[in-house]
């Protein structure tokens, strides 16, 4: 039992990282832009988020540094890094109308490079090791619920023992669901992703919606990278752990059928699949098999969902296609 709970808690920790990546990409894809640069964006988010908090700590000194401020700075720098990377992607695909897949892949290469460079640069400059002080580390993994809730048997650990990023991600998913389904702006955004020519003819500013969704979506994805570095990786630059996470987020978007609420349990499930090899080890199964499980699940879901031919559970109809009014 307790090992099961431990698995669940660890899945949530890793799932939180995925949830940000996925929610950001859902927002982007709802505007019809398929940004395959998530991998790069999350790298940049991780490196710059850590750099932000680290610089802050160095500037004010360990003693004077405040955990909450450090978190805000990390979030803002990570978001900004992702937003800027996505702005580049947006400019190339929306304004210059270049191929989205190629641009996205280029962004992945660019972003992982920039992220690595930044992380390594900091490491070398600091003499081989960048890490936040224990005081700030604690702030990033601080359990926000009071101990009497956490101490409730079973339930307490499952529901109340996580850090703030998890609950914020859930709130974000719910907010996005509400935004897409209930608000006019959300409906307009969906129409842009479904049929840009319709939205255009209805007088909606396609360019504005596409840019905003792409930039904000990229920013959200980047926070995922920062969350990984500051929680799972223990506030130390670790490029290996981040590798592949962005691709997993892209797969997860498909798995969730572009629905933010599905991203909540989907991320936790994928989180579980990703860390299974550490926890539920079966001797004769190589870890590589474990690691491809999320992708296998995604393929199975794709097969089933396309077989059912449900009109509602489809990607945004214009996903991956650039829009130009005078094109026919």
């Amino acid at each position: 039992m307790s090992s099961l709970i431990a698995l669940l808690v660890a899945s949530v920790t890793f799932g939180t990282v995925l949830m940000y990546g996925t929610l950001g990409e859902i927002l982007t894809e709802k505007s019809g832009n398929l940004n395959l640069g998530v991998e790069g964006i999350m790298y940049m988010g991780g490196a710059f988020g850590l750099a932000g908090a680290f610089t802050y700590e160095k500037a004010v000194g360990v003693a004077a540094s405040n955990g909450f401020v450090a978190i805000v700075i990390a979030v803002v720098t990570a978001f900004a890094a992702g937003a800027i990377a996505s702005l580049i992607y947006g400019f190339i695909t929306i304004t210059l109308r270049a191929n989205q897949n190629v641009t996205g892949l280029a962004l992945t290469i660019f972003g992982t490079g920039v992220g690595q460079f930044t992380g390594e640069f900091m490491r070398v400059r600091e003499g081989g090791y960048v890490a936040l002080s224990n005081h700030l580390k604690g702030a990033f993994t601080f359990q926000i619920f009071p101990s009497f809730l956490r101490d409730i048997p079973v339930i307490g650990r499952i529901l109340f023992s996580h850090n703030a990023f998890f609950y914020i991600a859930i709130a974000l998913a719910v907010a996005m669901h509400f935004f897409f389904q209930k608000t006019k702006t959300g409906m307009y955004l969906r129409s842009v992703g479904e049929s840009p020519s319709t939205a255009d003819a209805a007088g909606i500013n396609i360019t504005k919606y596409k840019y905003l969704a792409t930039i904000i979506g990229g920013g959200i994805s980047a926070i995922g990278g920062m969350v990984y570095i500051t929680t799972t990786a223990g506030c130390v630059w670790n490029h290996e752990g981040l590798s592949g996470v962005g691709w997993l987020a892209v797969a997860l978007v498909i798995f969730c059928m572009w629905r933010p609420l599905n991203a909540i349990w989907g991320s936790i499930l994928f989180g579980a699949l990703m860390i299974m090899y550490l926890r539920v080890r079966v001797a004769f199964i190589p870890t590589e098999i474990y690691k491809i499980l999320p992708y296998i699940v995604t393929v199975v879901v794709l097969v089933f969902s396309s077989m059912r031919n449900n009109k509602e559970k489809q990607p945004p109809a214009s996903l991956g296609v650039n829009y130009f009014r005078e094109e026919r």
Partner: protein
Amino acid sequence: MQNNCAIQMCSITKRFGQVVANDGINLEIRRGEILSLLGENGSGKTTLMNMLAGIYQPDEGEILADGKPIAIRSPKDAYSYGIGMIHQHYKLVDVFTAAQNIVLGLNDEKLDLKTINSKVKRICDRYSFAIAPERKIYDMSVSQKQTVEIVKVLYRGADILILDEPTAVLTPQETEKLFVVLRAMKEDGKAVVIITHKLNEVMELSDEVAVLRKGKYIGRVRTSETNPQQLTDMMVGHSVVLNIDRPEYSDPFPRLTVEDLTCVDHEGVTKLDHVSFTAMGGEILGVAGIAGSGQKELLESITGLYPVKEGSVRFFEENGCETELIGKTPMQIRRTGVGMAFVPEDRLGMGLVGSMGMTGNMMLRSWRSGKGLFLNKKSPEHLAKKVWNDLEVVTPSTSFPVRRMSGGNVQKVLVGREIASRPRILMTAYPVRGLDINTSYTIYNLLTEQKMGGVAVVFVGEDLDVMLELCDRILVLCGGKVSGIVDARNATKEQIGLMMTSVGQRRASDDE
């Protein structure tokens, strides 16, 4: 007279790269009048109207609304001048409801269903539309979608309505209904512009006709003072004969016998229900029916592209030998030497490769006959040149991507290629859809030529007037069943229209 003028377009020119789509066009649109815009494919009708709808900007010239020059920079601007266009490809979001589509993009409108519904209802009552505001677009028939488009435009307060080939996808009954609506709009003092290829519709509906040819404005006549022949001559630029010749083949013989053909799609819906008929060599067999009554499945199951649940399709040689086609793949059917040619509905999807030129597309039919490692380009090139000349395909070269050609020319390439394979059965699905009169007649003549060569021609069509003139017999499908086969020489349009809806239950979507 002057005060009912809504829009004036003055020497409008629009170029797409080298192509001059509109060349110094002057056009006046008046309130309380239905204007038909007539012209062959690619004559620039859609382009001209798109400039009023804010999709394109004119390169030269001026647009006046009520005498004052205006600039229409976006579809939003167009609405602000009361211009609404119903595009040939509907601009609707499939996964939204009708109501959501109707209010899309309206900023001052709350997403309050009650107000929307009551306003929608007012419009529907005025023109006796019936739409279900809560229904999703993907659940709707083509004509229901069109209704949503019209309501959407009216909801935005448009009083200048432009319809781009609205009848191309409608049944005769649905077309009639649409015309009633358009006449009611005219009564309300709205200006209506309708683009159509069908001359009988022009004659029936409009007050005036404006004709374009190759991007130029040719003239404008009152409908009451003209006739189809004059209009065709204006459109084409020289006189054309508008009769379809229907010679009789000396001795038609059974070529293909279909018995109890039944198909079920992957969702378990029966698409064809015990369909039986015989196609004769030396005969054009028409297939009529409301869109989606099984026409596509019929042709595809005969050609081996669609899974068959039961039934048989037998091909007869001249010497009486017969071959069963069911259970064979298209490749196997071809190897048996049956000689079947298929001009599918989806020309660029199933028929041709859009990004390749004419030569490349000719090769698709013959590449297996080449020897060795390399492609034999000579004979396809030769064939492409022949089709280019014989059918007067308008294209800069045989390597010009077919995707960029106009619809009529794409169709000529496809039909030309299929006929060149010397088929004994020629199956065509909507071969003149979207084509202008002149090209349509070229296609009709080609089909008749094939028939007189002893080919069994199956013609799935939608324009009943044409089918009654062109075909020898007409098979009418209704919901996947054969509701009858009539002799086209003495059947009437009403009779066929009735058969299209009578067998089996009516489609649920028609009841609303």
